[in-house]
């Protein structure tokens, strides 16, 4: 196998790569060019406790705020999905102290006022769009809040589907809205009450519970290995789009 060769070649090529200067919480470090922000910070000597999670853009643990040299703007990113650049001043969010409402989904309904009754602060939205600018997934976060405010749960659920709940919107919002908790309620209401239920699923659950497959299953689980292998080999495969 070749994995060893692959690693050693990787090491060699890294040595040739140019370095860039980044600032981790103000301290400067020279890092090989081409690393993600996450790998750059580790290369500098940090061992993450907070600030690293899935390392693949799915969990929002590595929400990062940075500024570039000679630039007043604050930028946001996921450290694991963004290439480190010369002159970045980096800091990560260890935690977001956001307000989440507790509810029993069985006792609420997707009414026009359910969102404002749970999160009245969404009415404080000043439509500044800072939330959307902060979103590392490029979601239209302000539109999600506005849809929630109007009671358009379907729209809010669909617009927010790719939300990683990293909290960057929430930490930037002048109205102190916890967008990602608001959107979570939108999506659960949509999934439970608005999205049509699957009939074939409900029927299958009934069939399984009624014991329809018990006999056949017993036969399979106690079958001789050779017989089971033959069944497997001869099973037909569903085709077509």
């Amino acid at each position, binding site marked *: 196998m070749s994995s060893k060769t692959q690693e050693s070649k990787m090491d060699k090529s890294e040595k040739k790569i140019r370095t860039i200067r980044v600032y981790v919480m103000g301290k400067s470090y020279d890092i090989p060019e081409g690393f993600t922000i996450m790998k750059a910070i580790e*290369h500098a000597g940090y061992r993450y406790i907070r600030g690293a999670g899935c390392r693949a853009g799915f969990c929002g643990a590595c929400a990062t705020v940075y500024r570039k040299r000679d630039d007043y703007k604050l930028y946001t990113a996921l450290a694991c999905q963004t290439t480190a650049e010369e002159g970045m001043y980096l800091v990560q969010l260890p935690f977001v102290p956001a307000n989440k409402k507790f509810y029993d989904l069985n006792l609420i309904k997707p009414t026009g006022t359910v969102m404002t009754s749970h999160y009245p602060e969404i009415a404080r939205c000043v439509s500044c769009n800072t939330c959307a600018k902060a979103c590392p997934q490029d979601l239209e976060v302000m539109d999600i809040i506005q849809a929630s405010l109007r009671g358009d749960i379907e729209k809010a659920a669909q617009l927010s589907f790719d939300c990683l709940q990293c909290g960057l919107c929430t930490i930037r919002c002048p109205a102190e809205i916890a967008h990602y908790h608001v959107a979570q309620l939108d999506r659960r209401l949509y*999934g439970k009450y608005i999205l049509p239920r699957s009939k074939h699923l409900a029927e299958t659950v009934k069939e399984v519970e009624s014991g329809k497959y018990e006999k056949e299953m017993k036969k399979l689980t106690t079958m001789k290995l050779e017989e089971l292998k033959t069944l497997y080999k001869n099973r037909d495969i569903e085709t077509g789009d």
Partner: protein
Amino acid sequence: MELINGYPEYMRDMIHTVEKTRQDRIKKALKMMTLDEREAVLTHHHPDYNPATKRTVKAGVNKGDKMPHEVADLLEARSLISPDEIDLSKIDYDVDLLIIGGGGAGIVAALWANQEGVPADNILIATKLRLGDSNSMMAQGGIQAADKPNDSITRHYLDVMGGGHFENKPDLVEALVSDAPLIIKWHEDLGVMYDKEKDGTMVTIHGGGTSRKRMHSAKDYTGMEIIRVLRDEMRNKKIPILEFAPAVELIKDDKGQVAGAVLFNMETDQYYVVRAKATIITTGGFGRLHIQNFPTTNHYGATADGLVMAYRAGANLRDMDSVQYHPTGAIFPEQIVGLLITEKVRGLGAQPLNIDGELFVNPLEPRDVESAAFIRECYERNKGVETHTGLKGVWLDTPLIDIIHGKGTIEKKLSAMYRMYARFGIDMTKDPILVYPTLHYQNGGIEINADGTTKLPGLFVAGEASGGVHGKNRLMGNSVLDYNVFGRRAGIAVAKHVKKASVGKLTLEHVKDYEKTLDNEGVKTDRESPMIIPDYREKSVLSRMIDVWR
């Protein structure tokens, strides 16, 4: 390096070759390999079949079993704690149920234990990162369940057994497939946004090794969507959570039961003693051990901690010789090497191609076979594509997806994949992507029974940490299913167990005993385990580290 739409010039030329063969390939289907052909490619090219990658474990319940060196290293290691320094007379948390690990299996177990009567305040979830941080969150492609009229749980059973090379525990597979429809229904009730047709029919596709299209998805954020919902539900139930507080050893009692754990607060360095009538290990798998130096798709915390603790306490492991390499890990650009390219990409029609733009394997063989075929193409037939850093991979012809299913399919159904590549300048709707197998899943683990119990009284296990469900190879969409089915079953079993259970005098003698066993077997080492988190600091930094606080 100069890039043209994300690729260097020499790769641009290679992409032209792929484009040239595309029209002729669209309708082409390669036959699945016979069982003999599969065996041949696995034997010669799958990393698991190379004996040099493993060694015989010298101590403990599985003494004599072959395991990857990286796993054996953790088992043949000292404890992180000195048992005599831990004051077991002061209990910090006294609960009915301790759950170690806050990923999918842990959350599901907590919800069901609570549902079945264990009060929220009598449950504690201790997790090493944040609640929900886990491989469960990263699952992209989907969850299997036989719930369509042309399918049945018995067909699903057959697919799972065949995929696992018939080495799965039959009763666990029966549980997995039988509970699957019920799990999807539970998710529907909780508000999970599954992909559906307008009339509510589930959108389902094939995964590698399936005989029916039974992969349910929520775009390519399936794992994230399910975890978001389950985690929200757990917070609504106000089940206590301790984050950044991994367990470092199990605690037993004088009756030989598992009775809690020693937790470590990673931010204050103090330990906590948890006494529990039942303990569920839901710590996930071992991707971050980087077996054989492979990059991994896995979460930062996937370091097999539960395996190590349970083994020291006397639980038995199984199928630990079997490692799952996912055929399609990213191999270019460098920033995302090893990250998962969901099997759904192939499920939707993308073909794996060699440097000549030829389709060389059916895109949907079981994962181990598909991976072995990629490795053969790169290193025996020498028809891989080499990156500028010297890695080799094969093309995955993603533009086919929009050609087959219509423009916009990738952006809609694979938005996570599309976004990841776009971040690095590559448009996967227009250009193919480069892939190579990546370390993905721990097929084996702590042996469980169908109700999540283990051979140790008081200890339950669910999810990737457990062994027996998937035999020697897991099929796509069965891990999300696994953590739901066995998390639920463990939660239900615990609710019954704690009604009768009583805990005796707490002890860490088993930790001392295990170290004595190591000495007796001649294992001389100062390695310590569990690992808790991997260390990616630069060598030049590590070589100049000093510890001034002690």
